[in-house]
């Protein structure tokens, strides 16, 4: 099965983790239009390629962290802290 690199615990089986979906999504201000609110809630890139997403080590240390993972190969290109911007390594090489 897929293994993910927890920043604290190292490489662990995927069933120790819960995926939190796409990362770096910021809530718009309350005065946002319906269109902006709908974009925030529902619309996603859903790439066939490198996906920036957040995971929680739910059955381990509990940490939230970000990864760049390729959705076709499951290759993990980068692991970075939950509040950090994506590093250079998290770029899409090929689709």
């Amino acid at each position, binding site marked *: *099965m897929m293994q993910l690199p927890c920043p604290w615990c190292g490489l662990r089986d995927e069933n120790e983790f819960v995926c939190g979906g796409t990362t770096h999504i910021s809530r718009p201000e309350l005065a946002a239009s*319906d269109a902006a609110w709908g974009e925030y809630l529902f*619309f*996603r*890139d*859903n*790439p066939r390629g490198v996906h920036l*997403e957040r995971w929680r080590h739910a059955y381990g240390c509990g940490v939230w962290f970000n990864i760049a993972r390729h959705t*076709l190969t499951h290759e993990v290109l980068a692991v970075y802290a939950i509040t950090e911007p994506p590093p250079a390594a998290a770029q899409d090489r090929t689709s």
Partner: protein
Amino acid sequence: MLSQRGHVMLAHSRHDLESLTRWANAMHMHGIEAELLTREQVGELIPALDMSAAARYPVLGGFMQRRGGTARHDAVAWGYARAADALGVDIIQGCEVTGFLKGPGGRVTGVQTQHGQIAAGRVGIAAAGHSSVLASLAGFRLPVTSYALQAMVTEPLKPRLDKVVISPATGAYVSQSDKGEMVIGGSLDLFASYAQRGSFAVLQSVVAATLAIFPSFSRLRLMRQWSGIVDVVHDSSPIIGPTPVPELYINCGWGTGGFKAIPAGGWTLAHVLATGRNHELAEPFQLERFTTGRLIDEAAASGIAH
């Protein structure tokens, strides 16, 4: 081809029994038959279930839709393909769409493929798990996340199960095909995936659930396992109609719900492609509902996350 053998949902707790009662009532309110079953009735209908006192997941009851069952989805797809071909439709396989041609006002005027361009007055996308990929080529986004959904079949054996059985509490979902194989439905890999192979973690949990309620299947060999990409949408309901690109239409968002309603989905897509107006059945299923907030309460109706 179509086997209306009966579809049985199991209850393993008092809460399950209450949920099944609500579902059965919801079906009755829509004029659809559904029978609540006692524990004894379930045991008679499905003798392979573990009904012993030591069962890990005791069966407290169930409900059945007698005319539910299975259908040969691949035969239906090929039936449509052959009929369309006979009516003069060109079905071009192995030809990837790599872009959309656009004209004045951004309206679509055709598709770019790896083998050349095809001009068209209207274009429809019906690409399931790859809907977001095509939308991205056309310059818009969808409220879709693509996940891997897996299934598997065992080696064939003599008739042992003549109902479709689903146990939501354990995640088991089994029926026996005409060839004697146990067909086992899995659950989603809960992370975005275009990999077309399911997670072993999910396979483990599905097999464990199946064997927990059908312990006599433990020696069966799994012959084949596969995974498809499903396009999941927040309200578990399809999107059928125009996109932000003029003259480009889409039919997607069917998620894990199976093919059973897709003939109506195809009909309503054909209607909007032919007339430029939505079929009345498709009106609640527009992309704009994710802006207006008028989502469909499907999960509450079906009780399954699709």
